[in-house]
């Protein structure tokens, strides 16, 4: 059982944070962030060429985290690899100590920094989960036997509570659960009503939910998230607070902290997933406010 799985099963309110490997091989800053956050959060979630931009691999980032004595979740997209590469990388990651896997379809290459790339998408997120589940049963996706003990992963996937119509996301979520997902991290949510409605809608699903938190840094960043995250609405009251705050960054952290407290207090989710997008060093400030 992974540490993440153990904490979630014990009913602890789990805090995960997203970290993006560098564009290059210098892991100094990456390691600094991991060291800084290690005692404060529970597990690190490592992106896989987020936004379709070419970075150091998620697996290499996960290894750096393991070597710092913390637990990673490896994001695995279907954008750049076919099913042979996906399964092979899953096996490789397992032997290197990575157990938590988050399956994602992946942003389209033309949105990234190598837009000429050939998009793969041999497997969508459901397909990646099916592949991992199959490996866990000792067989590859084509039914060929694996040798020796099969790997034991803890599988996760993503869901967007802001999506409209929500029914589409819920049906997809059920497919992901059926394919092996046991925990879900959501897109950023700012509206408590959205969080409550989603929480109610998934209350029968026997899975763990981590609400996505992206601390806002300014009015501009609020505009940015509404542009990039499908369906997300930053409530007017939050926009107003950011507008009048003398220190909008700090106010953004305060807003996130209040939101996390409400999620925890009302039992809307099993934890949160903080995506600081470059401002990871401010996470301890946010956590101090909890």
């Amino acid at each position, binding site marked *: 059982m992974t540490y993440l799985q153990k904490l979630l099963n014990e009913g602890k309110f789990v805090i995960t944070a997203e970290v993006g490997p560098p564009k290059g091989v210098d892991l100094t800053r990456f390691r600094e962030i991991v060291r800084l956050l290690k005692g404060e959060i529970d597990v690190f979630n490592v992106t896989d060429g987020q936004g379709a931009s070419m970075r150091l691999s998620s697996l290499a980032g996960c290894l750096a985290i393991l070597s710092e004595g913390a637990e990673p979740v490896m994001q695995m997209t279907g954008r750049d690899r076919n099913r042979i590469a996906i399964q092979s990388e899953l096996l490789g990651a397992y032997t290197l100590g990575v157990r938590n896997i988050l399956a994602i379809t992946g942003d389209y290459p033309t949105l990234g920094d190598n837009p000429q790339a050939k*998009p793969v998408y041999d497997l969508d*997120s459901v*397909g990646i989960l*099916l592949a991992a589940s199959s490996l866990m049963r000792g067989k590859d996706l*084509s039914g060929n036997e694996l040798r020796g003990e099969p790997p034991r992963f803890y599988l996760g996937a993503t869901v967007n509570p802001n999506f409209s119509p929500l029914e589409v996301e819920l049906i997809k979520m059920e497919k992901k659960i059926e394919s092996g997902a046991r925990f879900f991290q959501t897109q950023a949510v700012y509206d408590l009503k959205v969080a409550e409605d989603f929480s109610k809608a998934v209350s029968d699903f026997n899975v763990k939910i981590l609400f996505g938190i992206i601390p806002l840094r300014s009015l501009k960043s609020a505009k940015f998230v509404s542009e990039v995250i499908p369906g997300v609405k930053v409530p007017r009251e939050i926009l107003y607070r950011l507008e009048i705050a003398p220190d909008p960054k700090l106010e953004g952290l305060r807003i996130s902290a209040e939101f996390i407290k409400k999620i925890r207090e009302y039992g809307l989710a099993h934890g949160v997933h903080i995506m600081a997008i470059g401002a990871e060093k401010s996470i301890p400030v946010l956590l101090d406010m909890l």
Partner: protein
Amino acid sequence: MIITKQKPFEEIAEELSGYDRVFLVGCSLCATACKTGGEEEVKAMKEKLEAVGKTVTGTVVLDPVCNLQKSRRDLRKFSQEISQSDAVLCMACGNGLQTLAEILEDLPIFPANDTLFLGEIKRFGVFEERCIQCGKCLLTSGVGLCPISRCPKGMVNGPCGGAKDGFCEANPEMKCIWLEIYEKLKKMGRLDEFRKIIPPLDHSLRVKPGKYSFRRGVVNDVPSKAS
């Protein structure tokens, strides 16, 4: 219908640099419909080439170029013009061009068109891709909307997380086909189809190059256990 788009003339002129005597071939079907290789376009190309100093040895619009035996027969009438040519400019699709190459053997052949996709003629001059010939038509849920060709990611189990206000992440001018599939299934009262998990596609069914003969069926060049 194979959808083609004519290359910019500078690119065509560049391909033909060093070849002075050019034979032009158009196609009566798709390229005519796309206005990239019908009688009119072949005539216009002839004029343009002549304006930059080329000699056009002859022109023909084959019916259609991709019918190997028929084109072989029809080109016999032009054997003299062709024998006097340094190159052929093909105003059909990439398939038509290769049919010509098979017939004309050693004569250099250049494409005047970029071959884009297999598509539907929406209305005059507007074409949309509807099928990428995946080898096993999956449109079993009966909605008649193909996610393999119409979703940039070829998602088989529903929309990716990127659809915004109903529009596609990769192409914001296009509605997310998966949302359309969902809406149509819902309207038809058949949402259960959407709930089904579609296993990963079998790509061994579309090993390139595909082959099919009436007698022997689909034949792939690469041996595969999967099919």
